């Protein structure tokens, strides 16, 4: 938790400029807003709650590559718990009413995680994961995405190799990602105010537990959940088989392509 040793700017200070959370969040103070006498003062304030979004396909649509049983637990229990616990954690706090992405960036707190971070990031990660896959997915991308993959990895096969290796070697729970990177330095929190054209490229990264590349100021394009709960009912200890199935049968390259397009637009707007 942040200590009271720092002066606490109002949360709006983080929200007004486009640079927003790329600055320091050290001053952010995690505290509940005092709500004494709220009931007497008038009707209770309506707070925005995050909803558990269903995957964009029926729960059995990924069979046999991802079983209905896995989906019922992974989406119906794990993902649901992250969303519900987040809602409980933020109600009545300064985070209430912020976007999920902003909550993630603020509560990442330069790596010194504030309590809601895990639930917020996991809620986001799972939404992103369900939309990274589809029934009858897999194969190879096309168009500009394929061109950039070949430019930045040498070939699609080389990309697939790197992505699989990242997923296989994430020690413990976590995620593997393909991201569009527009900053220069290759470390967390490294913010380059003036990236050049050659800084813009696709890279593969992995992240532990709930962490996602938004906190490093990257644009996520594709993710694979390698928490054991993502595959244990279908593959038990065989994580490599799960990773291959994901690449060969599940990836939605259409999603990745449209995310790339959106990322490029957002990146251009920032310049």
């Amino acid at each position, binding site marked *: 938790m942040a200590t009271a040793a720092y002066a606490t700017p109002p949360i709006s200070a983080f929200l007004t400029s486009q640079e927003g959370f790329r600055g320091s969040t050290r001053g952010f103070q995690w505290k509940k807003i005092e709500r004494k006498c709220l009931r007497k003062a008038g009707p209770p304030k309506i707070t925005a709650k995050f909803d558990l979004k269903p995957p964009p396909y029926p729960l059995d649509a990924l069979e046999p590559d991802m079983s209905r049983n896995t989906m019922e*637990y992974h989406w119906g*229990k*794990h993902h649901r*718990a992250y969303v519900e616990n987040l809602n409980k954690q933020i109600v009545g706090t300064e985070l209430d009413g912020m976007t999920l992405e902003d909550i993630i960036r603020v509560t990442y707190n330069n790596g010194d995680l504030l309590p809601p971070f*895990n639930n917020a990031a996991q809620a986001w990660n799972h939404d992103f994961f369900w939309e990274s896959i589809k029934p009858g997915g897999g194969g190879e991308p096309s168009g500009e995405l394929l061109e950039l993959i070949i430019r930045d990895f040498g070939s699609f096969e080389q990309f697939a190799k790197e992505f699989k290796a990242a997923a296989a070697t994430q*020690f*413990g*729970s*976590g995620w593997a990602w393909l991201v569009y990177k527009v900053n220069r330095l290759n470390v967390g929190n490294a913010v380059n105010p003036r990236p050049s054209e050659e800084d813009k490229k696709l890279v593969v990264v992995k992240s*532990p*537990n*709930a962490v996602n590349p938004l906190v490093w100021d990257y644009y996520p394009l594709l993710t694979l959940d390698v*928490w*054991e*709960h993502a595959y*244990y*009912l279908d593959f*038990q*200890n065989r994580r490599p088989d799960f990773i291959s199935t994901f690449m060969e049968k599940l990836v939605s390259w259409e999603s990745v392509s449209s995310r790339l397009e959106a990322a490029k637009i957002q990146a251009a707007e920032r310049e």
Partner: protein
Amino acid sequence: MALRTLVTRKALGNSVAFRQQLRGLQTHTLPDLPYDYGALEPAISGEIMQLHHQKHHQTYVTNFNKALEQLDDAINKGDSPTVVKLQSAIKFNGGGHINHSIFWKNLAPVREGGGEPPKGSLGWAIDNHFGSLEALVQKMNADGAGLQGSGWVWLGLDKEMKRLVVETTANQDPLVTKGSSLVPLLGIDVWEHAYYLQYKNVRPDYLKNIWKVINWKYASDIYEKECP
């Protein structure tokens, strides 16, 4: 004859253990479980125990041996970057081997004393430090349930301070990473692979039930040895 030598060498050459023996490197092997896979039921299913021991623990042993062999190579060649690069694989796989080897001994079937509360000096020490065994169990359950991702919750002895501690470690970090004077008495694996086939997303139920098969005799023996 030549062919047989070749075949033999090829077969042996595929074995990491053989190559390490040639060099006098100590290799690690998967320890046997001191009970049958199904002996901890219904607290922990036989299927979980078998996968956990034969697959997960075996993989840590295999990869630990591989990493040690590569380390030996790198040291002999004076290849410092590789020596440093191997540290994460050694910590993860070596830690996995150390932790699981303790974990199997921390468990015992009910008919062999599993779940029987600690007696003697460890029992006293627990009452002293935590108030009661129930309070310790509650603390370890809460810390284990709250651990984000994969890891372990430990009851350890700080042998310098002569003090019991509850700690959590991430992934396969062994307890000693939390302090060089810490000795593990009891480690509970809260990786999802330790409970998922039976308890699914409900880690607290796994934690509640595992106490029925905890081998306090083992923890007491270690405690008395370190803290006579």
